């Protein structure tokens, strides 16, 4: 895409050094900046997934670059309002939207059993992936999934407030 050639031009002088992309994925997922993912699921459901995804357009030429490492960092707070169950938060990256939620999540954390009004911080372990081939592309899809299992009873409602979702991609660039 010619529209982003300028970023490739920037990389011309990168030389033997690495190109490090610190991407605030959260800002792409929730443009409003609140980081809120709401849920409202009837009780007694063994498993339901609530997905949200966004396409990240990275500078062209990265397809020729080799990935040194990919690091994903996230933090979230679960604010359950009604009902009881279990909420698992997962983060995915993929080259295509179709394959986004089909693999293993990069990071994942579970709230454990929650019931009624409750606030649970989700501390997701930082994930480091070496020689990741997903980011050898111009377009990358990022997705978050809330996987809920609810107990019999009233609807399980609440919000997951994502406070951080950052991606750090280190490339040995061969952009040109």
């Amino acid at each position, binding site marked *: 895409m010619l529209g982003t050639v300028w970023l490739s031009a920037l990389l011309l*002088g990168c030389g*033997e*050094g690495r190109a490090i992309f*610190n991407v605030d994925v959260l*800002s792409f997922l929730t443009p409003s900046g609140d980081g809120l993912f709401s849920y409202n699921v009837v009780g007694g459901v063994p498993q339901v997934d609530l997905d949200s995804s966004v396409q990240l357009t990275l500078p062209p030429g990265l397809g020729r670059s080799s990935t040194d490492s990919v690091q994903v960092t996230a933090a979230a707070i679960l604010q359950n309002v009604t009902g009881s169950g279990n909420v698992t938060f997962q983060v995915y990256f993929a080259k295509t939207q179709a394959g986004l939620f089909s693999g293993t999540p990069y990071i994942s954390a579970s709230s454990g059993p929650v019931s009624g009004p409750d606030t649970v911080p989700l501390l997701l372990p930082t994930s480091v992936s070496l020689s990741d081939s997903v980011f050898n592309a111009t377009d990358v899809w990022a997705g978050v999934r809330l996987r809920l299992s609810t107990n019999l009873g009233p609807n399980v409602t609440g919000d997951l407030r994502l406070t951080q979702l950052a991606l750090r991609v280190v490339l040995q660039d061969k952009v040109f």
Partner: protein
Amino acid sequence: MRASIVGLGLTALVLGYAAPVSGQWLAVDARRIGMGGLAVGLSGGVVRFNPAYRAVRRHAARPGEPRLTVPIPLGLVSFFEEHPISHITHDPMFNPDSAAFNPVEAINTLLHPPFFLQVKTPPTPTNDWIFTIGRDHLVVDLGQSRELIPVDQFGFGGSSRPIDPGVDLKGVRLSVMTWFHTEVGFQLGDQLLGFLRDADSAQHNTAYTISADAFTEGGFAPTVSYSGRIAGDTAAGFYVGAALHYYVGAGYWRTSADSAGFMTGDTIFAGPTPVTPVMHAVSSYSRVGNSVGHGIGGDLGFAYASGPVEVGFGINDIGATITWPDTRLDTLRYDQAGDSVYSKPGLRHTSTTTRLPVTYIANLGYALGKTTLGVTVLNSGRGTTIQVGGEQRFGMLAARGGVVRDQRKRMQLAWGGGVRLGSFSLDAAFATYGTSLSNERGITMATSVAIY
């Protein structure tokens, strides 16, 4: 696109470098290099700029001047040992697909060809570049590499005369010289400068652009010139020289971009096309094989040689305006719908004029017994170069030193020596240089054999 960007960049830089190199005398003589590149009047360097020196060379005698110098390109030997020609296409230095490819290093090699040994190569930035990206946020931190980004206008240029074969008869010379003129310059706009050099955050609806100009022309010029002593004798004489050139232009090409870059939108990264390219450039050209350009210009020179002292002043390409009768003008624009840059044909068969830069040279030399000293001031249209140097001979040995203020207004040092055996001498010299994409100097070691 990749090849074109790299190719154009390298070509522009090399073309831009060719002229100032010639303007500053690409010395392959270790003796001259040891004196800061100083061309003491009687050597060949001044003749190119001051036609009076043809006569000075015929009539005056100076000690310590070799008749012929043969360079010893040890740098090429070393270079091709490290970069065998048989594997040149796979060499990381020239292969952008290699992980070890460093474009800065490649450009520096072209800017300062490794003809002689590189004692110290300017450091090539190899630091990490950090891109901080959010939906509405972009910061690029180039680290140490930001020092390579020129704050002011950056450019090379000048004219050169690679060869000038001809015949002399009683001070009159008929010749056909080849000539080239190149100019390459660019300047980053304030917004782009802040974005790259100061790691400023990208702003909404802002143009990040560069203005650039590249120009090259060349051809040949039948020339009639005269040089002779008009007063005095061999011991003390006043010499004049003049040349009249009829420039025949083989081709020229100029591209001027008053703005080229990109424009951000309401949000830095919104949609699949986060930025819109900006391109507003005009190309004018007359290709080789098309109708030739014509023009007339001249050189003037004066020299005075008395005993150990010589003084000279020369002006080149006076009034050298080339008229190209059949040129084309194209406009380069960005087509947003097609997401491509296109060339829109403009005027055809129009007349264009170009002007060769006037080059000035002033030199002062002193050569007595075993001592040679000199000063040269040269302006070839892109800044002034000042060279001060000297040589002291001790029997079969010679010691040399020099100081140069180069076109980038930076001081360079040179030093060296030689051993003379009969009619031959072996000379070596060290010189700092700043012709690279670096703020640090490199050091080269030149070697040559001189025949007296």
